């Protein structure tokens, strides 16, 4: 088992979705920042959250245009 398999599992469970992409980013952030304080994690969470919102908006506009 490896971190790559965790990423694959996330992609398998949430394929081509904003949640899947964001969760993968959060996981990689955890992996890179083992000792980071919770506060920093919360900041990164906000960044990912805004990415998620943008992605959702973009998906919504695509659906509307279709």
């Amino acid at each position: 088992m490896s971190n790559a398999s965790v990423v694959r599992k996330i992609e398998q469970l949430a394929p081509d979705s904003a949640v899947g992409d964001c969760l993968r980013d959060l996981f990689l952030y955890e992996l890179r920042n083992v000792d980071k304080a919770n506060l920093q994690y919360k900041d990164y969470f906000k960044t990912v959250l805004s990415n998620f919102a943008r992605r959702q908006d973009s998906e919504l506009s695509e659906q509307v245009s279709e």
Partner: protein
Amino acid sequence: MQILRIRMHNYRQYPDLDLTMEGDERDVLLLVARIGAGKTNLLNAATWCLYGKELMFDSSDTGLTMRSVRPVDDAASSVELRIKFQDGREALVLRELVDPMTLAPVHSGVGRLTVQESRSEAEGFEPVASADDWVKRYLPQRIQPYFLINAERVIQFSSDTGALPVQKAVLQIAQIDTLERLVRHLETVRGDYIQKLRTQKVDAATEQLSTQIGTLDQQITTLRADVDRHKDEIELLDANLAQNDDDLDRLRQGSEAISRFRSVEQRYSDLSVQYEGVDRSLNAQYAQVAPFMFAKDALTALAGSITRALDQNILPPPVSLDYLESLLASNECLCGCSLAPGSPHRTTLEELVERMAGSSARGLRLNELRVPLSLLERGRDSALSGLDHLKQEARDLLGELESVGRELEKARDEVEGLKEEDIRSLLAARRKAEERRREEQRLHDQKSYQLGEAQKARDNLQAELKRKLSRQETAKEFATAIEFASQCLEVAEQAYSEIALETRQAVSAKLRELFFEMHWASEKYRDVSIDEGYTIHVLDESGQEALAALSDGEKVILAIAFSQALSEVSGFELPMVFDSPFVKLDKDTKILVAESLAKHVTNRQLMLLMKPGEYDQTIEAAFTSRTLKEWMLVPDSETRSTSAVRKD
């Protein structure tokens, strides 16, 4: 990964040990030593070097010293591992038993870690910036159980301490500790947002505020209309009052004209009275002058009579009242004066007759007439002078009276048409208008105040609504964050569960395979597995739980199989170090275990730390396809130290 060299200095029973394992990574290192020679301390040394804590002991708990009882020199105790990675990098990991602050040698503790790294053989070693971070990154402590293996300890996974260590080991090799941490973080973040959201829930409050603002808006509209209405009314009343002011001004001017008229009228009246007085004085003065004039005329007529008598040489007649009267009448001197008894003229004549009769009995002479004549003239002049003065005064008064009369006529024209009732009516209307204006002003001020208060209240509510709406907006953001975190959590937890399940199933299957492969009488058992609760089950042929009934040798087989299963499923090509793996095994089982290890641990370094009784030709036979490097650990009871001797 391959351990190329282990060096220890003044560490426990190793004053100065240098075990070199350079060569092919498929080499099998056999290290043989008697009990107490220090096999296990090799594992302790490697663990302490990497993580600052020994595998078997916690020196802080036991009080055991890691420093040699008899150190060869004053240098600090130290352990150094030389490690080679699959990508060709090499590292020197050195931990010295010193006080991290003073760097003075100490007897136990974490000590100080340094790491040097070489990217390739051509390059030299360079110290890394943070040794602790380097170890956490490349050799995290979680991989320790499946490359530094003490068979006696491993067996505790299944027999002594229950399912928890098994679960811990399986989950560690599943490498989902990061995922687990992510789940915890997500739960914390979601919990924080939920907590924040609780303080931001304001939907009902905003609706209530909106309603209140709507009501106030209606009130404000009504009040504003009232205020405007009162304002218009006041403006109208002001216009009326201004008109009224004009009327009053006009009336005031009329009033002044009337006063002026009355003043002139009074003066005219006064002048008239004064004139009448003067007129009366004039008449009196005339009355005073008339006797003198009459007396003079009488005397003048008498003188003419005397003159004529003398001219005719006759005696003038005696002076008598009748004579004078006839004389005056003949000379037309009476001028209408009454000579009736008691009248002033008659009195004057009587006085004249009396005066002249007494002066000469022999007949009146002209010279004798001169004295009364001059007296009469003086009286006459004096009376005339008073008369002239009075006449002048009468003329002046008359002139003034005419002037005031003209003025009076003019004033009369001015006050013509002015009526007192008009003024009274106008003043009454004005009082009413002023009263109404005051009332309107009061109402206007009252409504304006109410309007101001309502607007103030509305502004406050509006500001409150704005704040609440802002909080509501924030609440929406929090809700989005909670939803997002929940979705992530759902996927992460599912990934965690599935990976844990897959890993457990893989380890369980591998454990079963290896256990049956290493057991000479595998038919005694139906199944070996790890259940959902991470409990290891060994079922006998009848299907009964037999874990507790396993012999010591079977437990060692189970432990080695479990360690090997963990190592294989992990996918890490880490060295496997077994401490006394065969000590409790019979000969046949030892062969099976050794062959199994030789068969399965093919792509990684294998180190077997054995007691002299464990090591025999069967081991060598099992690893015929591998290069064996043999070391003997030789203890010296006198110096209480151990040295390593290479057998080959």
